[in-house]
């Protein structure tokens, strides 16, 4: 299994949370390969460990054990500083709650990541303006997050994820706070990013998102399972 030439390789990944005297096995030995340029949808019920897997992949937390390799980079061997650089160069995050800074306008929110990589303010401005134009949101340049709809906010968040032109996009329930139609547009946008050649990993528990995926992964209680096992488990639950 180790000799696959997958872009992202996850081996024996465990994450155990200590809740008082009980241990919660959020991830209980996950092995996963994600090819470069794929659109991977990670499906599972609430509490199954989807977000945990995505955040470990994003270097926002450390696993209890196991290994994550992205390209040539081994996340375990990185210190906090190297992880920050990894997130800055390799990843774009999209969250369910958008996580826009409420006091910043659209342009400032989109260019916020560039404040940490040494770009000039002119370069920041130009890049953010270009992305706004591509998303057809020039009208909202000066708007604050509270002055926009959820769908518009998520589009701004997607633009922010793209501002450093990362090869990997990680999205945690990007449509979770949106109505069906708006959620669909957002998925369409993510699909477009995949078509541009980016590796996209989307976490969701909405089965309708499957149509965009090149690859479906199912997770139950911290373990990856086959589609059959998953469907069966969901069916017995209901």
């Amino acid at each position: 299994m180790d000799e696959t030439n997958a872009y992202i390789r996850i081996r024996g990944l465990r994450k155990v949370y200590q809740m008082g005297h009980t241990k919660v096995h959020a991830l209980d030995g996950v092995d996963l390969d994600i090819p470069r340029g794929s659109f991977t949808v990670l499906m599972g019920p609430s509490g199954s460990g989807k977000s945990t897997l995505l955040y470990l992949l994003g270097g926002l937390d450390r696993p209890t054990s196991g290994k994550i390799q992205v390209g040539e980079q081994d996340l375990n061997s990185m210190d906090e500083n190297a992880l920050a650089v990894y997130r800055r160069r390799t990843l774009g995050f999209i969250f369910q709650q958008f996580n826009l800074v409420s006091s910043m306008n659209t342009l400032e929110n989109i260019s916020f990541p560039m404040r940490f990589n040494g770009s000039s303010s002119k370069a920041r401005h130009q890049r953010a303006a270009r992305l706004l134009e591509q998303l057809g949101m020039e009208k909202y340049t000066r708007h604050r997050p509270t002055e926009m709809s959820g769908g518009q906010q998520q589009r701004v968040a997607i633009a922010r994820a793209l501002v450093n032109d990362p090869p990997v996009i990680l999205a945690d329930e990007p449509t979770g706070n949106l109505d069906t139609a708006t959620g669909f547009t957002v998925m369409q946008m993510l699909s477009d990013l995949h078509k541009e050649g980016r590796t996209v990993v989307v976490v969701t528990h909405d089965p309708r998102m499957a149509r965009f995926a090149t690859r479906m992964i199912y997770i139950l209680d911290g373990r990856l399972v086959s589609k059959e096992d998953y469907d069966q488990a969901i069916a017995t639950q209901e």
Partner: protein
Amino acid sequence: MRLLDLLGLIFYNLSRRKGRVALTAIGVVIGTAAVVILVSLGNGLQRSATSQLGGISDLTSIMVFPQYEEQMAGPGMSVSGPSTVKLLTESVIADITAIPHVTAVIPRDYLRTMSVINYARLEAWANVMGVGAQDVADLGYTVKEGVGTLERGTAVIGEPMLRNFMDPKMRPGQEPPEPPDLLDQQVKLVITKYTNDGQEVRKTVQLRIVGILKESRNEGDYSLIVNMNDMQGWNEWAIGKRINRAREGYEQVTVKVDSVDNVLAVADSITALGFQAYTPQSAVQGVSNFYIIIQVVFGGVGAVALLVAAIGIANTMAMAILERTREIGLMKAIGATNRDVLSIFLGEAAGIGFIGGLGGVGLGWLVGQAINAVALPYLASQAAQMGTPPPDAAVYTPLWLPVFAVVFATLIGLISGLYPALRAATLVPVVALKYE
């Protein structure tokens, strides 16, 4: 993260919470203002105290006297031990002149018997002083009218001295006479001595007054200053024998030093030569030390106020970090390093300290001006009653103080922000992002 981006972000973060920042900064403003006002007050007190001492005596001179007693003659030592008497002879004067920073060594002598000055029907008692210099200016005296040159047969007189002239035949109740204008007038100096058999002998000397000294609250005010050679002649007449300066030396010399800063060192060198040296500067030094202690104590009181402000900053920063936990998580997710986060929050805390420091310096300066406006007329009237020169400021802010105060307030902010900022920097991104 570039420094400019960092500063820009810090400024942005402070400006979007103006109300909170202002409220927190008020504590710093008050603390800094307290430091500035109290230290300035201590400084002003010191300045007026030293300037009054300086007004009384010339700070750059040292009075040197011969050492007649045998030094180190402690109990048990023979009284007839080797003599260590030190006289102010010409060769000694040359030695003193050779000490670095000495600009002049001026011998002085006083009339060793009684004398009175007569002018027309008026007479006055005077301190008659002989000075071994070309001009009274060498001694630091200022001439108000005429000149200060000391030639044989001429004299310079202190202005307040003129008010001492009285009519000996004046009846009680009669108006005292106007002080005479003695400039370019001839006065008679009547010197009296007693022979061994009790006979009173008088000698009258004609002197032309060539200069009147400006009143300056020193010995010159009530002196008649004459040429050293005249003085020596009169003294020889008074004691009835010749004075050999090479053997006996002078009664007293005044040593002038180039700057106040060197006075104490020169005085020490003279003491080391075995003479008695007195300097008004040592008194001034004592006063200065006293006021430095006052300033430190006052500054300490202000610093306590700043410490209270520091707790306010720490509190505000801790609150800010709670409120912005998700934002911290986001910053990390989009590539901010722990150091970036630390710098941002430290910078904000230091920024509050800096703003408060600027405000405090401004407020302190304003209050200082107000105190000056109220207190100066009062101090001036007090000084006039005591006959000392009026102080130029009750509260005096030296230039270093505002700079120091702003730097100090900024540092206080930085230190207060240290713990909250460290906590922010070391937050696990996932935990921060999930924070509600």
